[in-house]
């Protein structure tokens, strides 16, 4: 029998030994040291902070009701004319006479919501599957991985489309579900791989030898050590989710709700008139590109920093 205090001490030792494999600096500390001087990281970070601020303050920044067709009279669809910029409408109107500026500003909210919610859902689903496969092994692993293989056997956007069409009335939630399901197998594979790689590592063997049960080993030792690649992947997935959601909107499978404008939806609407009023498409498109780029830069710089190959 080992006393609880001693067990805890060895537990924490096991944890530390897993992290400390070079010169007493933990991988995370080391990664942060490299991240701090990475311009890529800071560019991504600033983009995302600005984007979050915009989404948070959107209600204050918007000047008009995004759904109200206030300038309807000044728009001519047949002549491809829009209402010009005027007081209260700094960027003029869209083809339905709605304030473009307010729609752009408020669009950040929906875009953020879709990106983050889809990622979280995909992450949770993927982690449950990955944990089942990686922690239990055996037939559970085989079964889960077959399901994951099948999901991966359908090209991701095609899978998202297939799920989106199942709902007779597309809305923001159906888009989130469709986009998130696509990410489940990715996270599941990643986590399973991480768990498998640790199964025979010293800290897990030590904990097993001490008689720690499988549950605590998985949740307290293996899972925390697997999180960094998952977090990196999640950051990048926010970007792909936003782009995938925009693609769904473009195909007419996105939210049709006019009072909650979304950049992908605005871009989809503007496509048919892109020759005449390119700014209607360019504004949401560039907004999507910049935000997607921000999350990608952040994720990629973290991946680079966490890569053990880059340690000195």
């Amino acid at each position, binding site marked *: 029998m080992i006393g609880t205090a001693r067990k805890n001490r060895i537990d924490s030792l096991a944890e530390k030994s897993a992290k400390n494999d070079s010169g007493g600096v933990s991988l995370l500390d080391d990664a942060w040291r490299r991240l701090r001087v990475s311009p890529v990281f800071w560019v991504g970070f600033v983009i995302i902070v600005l984007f979050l601020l915009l989404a948070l303050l959107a209600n204050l920044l918007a000047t008009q009701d995004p759904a109200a067709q206030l300038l309807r009279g000044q728009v001519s669809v047949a002549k491809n004319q829009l209402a010009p910029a005027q007081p209260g409408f700094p960027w003029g109107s869209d083809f339905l006479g709605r304030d473009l500026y307010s729609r752009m500003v408020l669009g950040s909210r929906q875009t953020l919501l879709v990106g983050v919610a889809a990622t979280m859902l995909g992450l949770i689903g993927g982690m449950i599957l990955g944990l089942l496969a990686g922690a239990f092994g055996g037939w559970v692993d085989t079964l889960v991985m*077959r*399901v994951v*293989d*099948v999901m991966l*056997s*359908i*090209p*991701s*956007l*095609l899978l998202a*489309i*297939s799920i989106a*069409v*199942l*709902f*007779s009335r597309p809305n923001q939630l159906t888009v989130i579900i469709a986009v998130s399901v696509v990410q489940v197998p990715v996270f599941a594979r990643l986590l399973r791989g991480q768990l498998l790689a640790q199964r025979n590592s010293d800290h897990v063997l030590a904990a097993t030898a001490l008689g720690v049960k499988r549950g605590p080993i998985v949740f307290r030792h293996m899972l925390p050590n697997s999180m960094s690649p998952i977090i990196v992947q999640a950051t990048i997935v926010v*970007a792909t989710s936003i*782009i995938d959601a*925009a*693609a769904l909107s*473009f*195909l*007419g*499978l996105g939210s049709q709700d006019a009072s909650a404008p979304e950049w*992908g939806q605005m*871009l989809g609407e503007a*496509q048919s008139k*892109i*020759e005449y009023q*390119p700014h209607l*498409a360019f504004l949401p*498109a560039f907004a*999507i*590109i*910049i935000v*997607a*780029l921000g999350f*990608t*830069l952040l994720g*990629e710089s973290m991946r680079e920093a966490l890569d053990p190959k880059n340690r000195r």
Partner: protein
Amino acid sequence: MLKYAIRRIGQLLVVLAILSLLLFIWLRSLPGGIESSICADRCTAEKRADIRRTLGLDEPVIVQYFKFIGRVFQGNFGISAKVIPGTPALEVFTQRFPATIELAIGAMLFALSLGIPLGYMAAKRKGGVFDNVGVIGTLVGIAVPVFFLAYLLKLVFAVKLGWLPPSGRQDPTLDATRVTGFFVLDGLITREWDAAWDAFKHLILPSIALGTIPLAVIFRITRSSVLDVLDEDYVRTAEAKGLTAQVIRQRHVLRNAMLPVVTVTGLQVGGLLAGAVLTETIFAYPGLGAALAQSFREKDYPVLQVVILAAAATYVLVNLIVDLSYAVIDPRIRTAGSKR
């Protein structure tokens, strides 16, 4: 090698079997049910029940599934209602398939012919201006939605500059002879050079739009894989032996660095099928992607099921080919596989 191939083909069959079941469940869960694709909103309840009976939808689900599988093996996927009305769905598929393959080949050629050399050059100049511009360029390339890029290309090069055709596969006034369904190839076989050239021009913009993401991905994987290989002992040995730069590059660096590139290229093919949905819609390119987008919009379920099943089968098959070719390139995988 043979055992490895058989094992992989076995896995493929399992995946396809599960997929067929999922597809079956999926088709029956579509809003409005199968019968709505036939009579839309005009049907009375009686008429609906009648259609359900003729389609066998009132039978037990298990029976329906096995009948469905039976029809699949006979190549009977029903009749297209909207894409090419009145034509068997399988025929819609065989008509459209060459168009998408041609487009996919164009996109992959674009991605590989630029991605590999540029990735190699970036790795050789790691940290330099060229490398940094390349890496940032790929990040931007991945962040641009495919359909926006497609519209942009069409707007600039087809509408404003008029250099390239904005839509379609070939100028219909050319009256070209059809042999294989691959228009560029047809033109070359029949020596109708103008037809081949015209079909080729129609391919350029969609190929670039579709190939941009694979280009970015292939550039990155080539770069990082060349960087890994350049650090290897055998490269240093080769340099120490005084081999010429060209021999080192071809025999030692590129050959080893190509392994991950092959895998990633295979994975990108699946992405191409999905990207084709967007690209083909924008360029009104009559391929599978456009058929898929249209059948989604207009609930042409027979076309939908054949295209989705075929897309998944192609994807799985391409991955199998990639894995097998991997075993050919890398002897280590071959032995690991045959030991089991």
